[in-house]
């Protein structure tokens, strides 16, 4: 190692920093689009972490250029997996963005709390209940009365 900085230390710090910033953004942001962007950042950090798992600072790229004995190579397996993960990540982004478009069409807002509020009140209205009903007490009748214990057929299978 010729430098004063350890390259693996820099790379690990970057990966963990990106994952931390992304997850903090997912948890703390109040705007839904900002949440999707934070997810993109966390995903970038995870990809960097995976490639870093197969990285050696003294190795060459895993490409055979001649038939002779190759030098030390970095591990190509995490690279192949990250290649898939990048494409899947873009698919997740497209799905999240389409959900955002539907949320905005339906509830006319992208604020997290406001959208959750309107979603709750819509669900409550479709049930025919008040908005802030208790979650412990059931609203109406039970759909089926509980069966008494002596009438329960314990044999199973095809009863007569």
């Amino acid at each position, binding site marked *: 190692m010729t*430098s004063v900085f350890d390259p693996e230390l820099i790379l690990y710090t*970057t990966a963990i920093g990106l994952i931390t910033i992304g997850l903090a953004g997912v948890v703390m942001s109040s705007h839904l689009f900002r949440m999707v*962007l934070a997810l993109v*950042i966390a995903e970038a950090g995870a990809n960097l972490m995976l490639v870093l798992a197969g990285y050696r600072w003294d*190795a060459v790229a895993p490409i055979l250029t001649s038939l002779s004995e190759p030098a030390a190579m*970095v591990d190509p397996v995490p690279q192949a997996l*990250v290649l898939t993960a990048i494409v899947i*990540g*873009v698919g997740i982004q497209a799905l999240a*963005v389409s959900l955002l478009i539907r949320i905005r069409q339906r509830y006319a807002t992208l604020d997290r709390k406001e959208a959750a509020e309107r979603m709750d009140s819509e669900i409550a209205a479709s049930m025919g209940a008040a908005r802030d009903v208790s979650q412990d007490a059931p609203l109406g009748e039970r759909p089926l009365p509980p069966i008494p214990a002596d009438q329960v057929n314990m044999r199973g299978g095809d009863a007569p």
Partner: protein
Amino acid sequence: MSDIEVWILLLLALMMLCAAVMVLLVKNHIAAVAAASVVSLGLALLFVIMRAPDVAMTEAAVGVGLSSLILALALRRLGLWKVDSEQVKYILLSHGGENKDG
């Protein structure tokens, strides 16, 4: 790994972390999308230094190009495409006409 590569690595790492913080803090959503694509671009350059050229190509094409395109088009559909500066807005409107679906 030579000395100059470590310095490039350090520079890229700082750039990516600053852009990641900027994504969460900046007000304008177009700027946030641009900062997110800066993070992806730095990641592609890091992959080149880390001897993963195939991953770097994919990240540059898909992560920087397609992902930013999706997010920018979603900004228009979500009505978040707002340009802050009055002067820039004037220039854009004089060339591109009224923004219909924004």
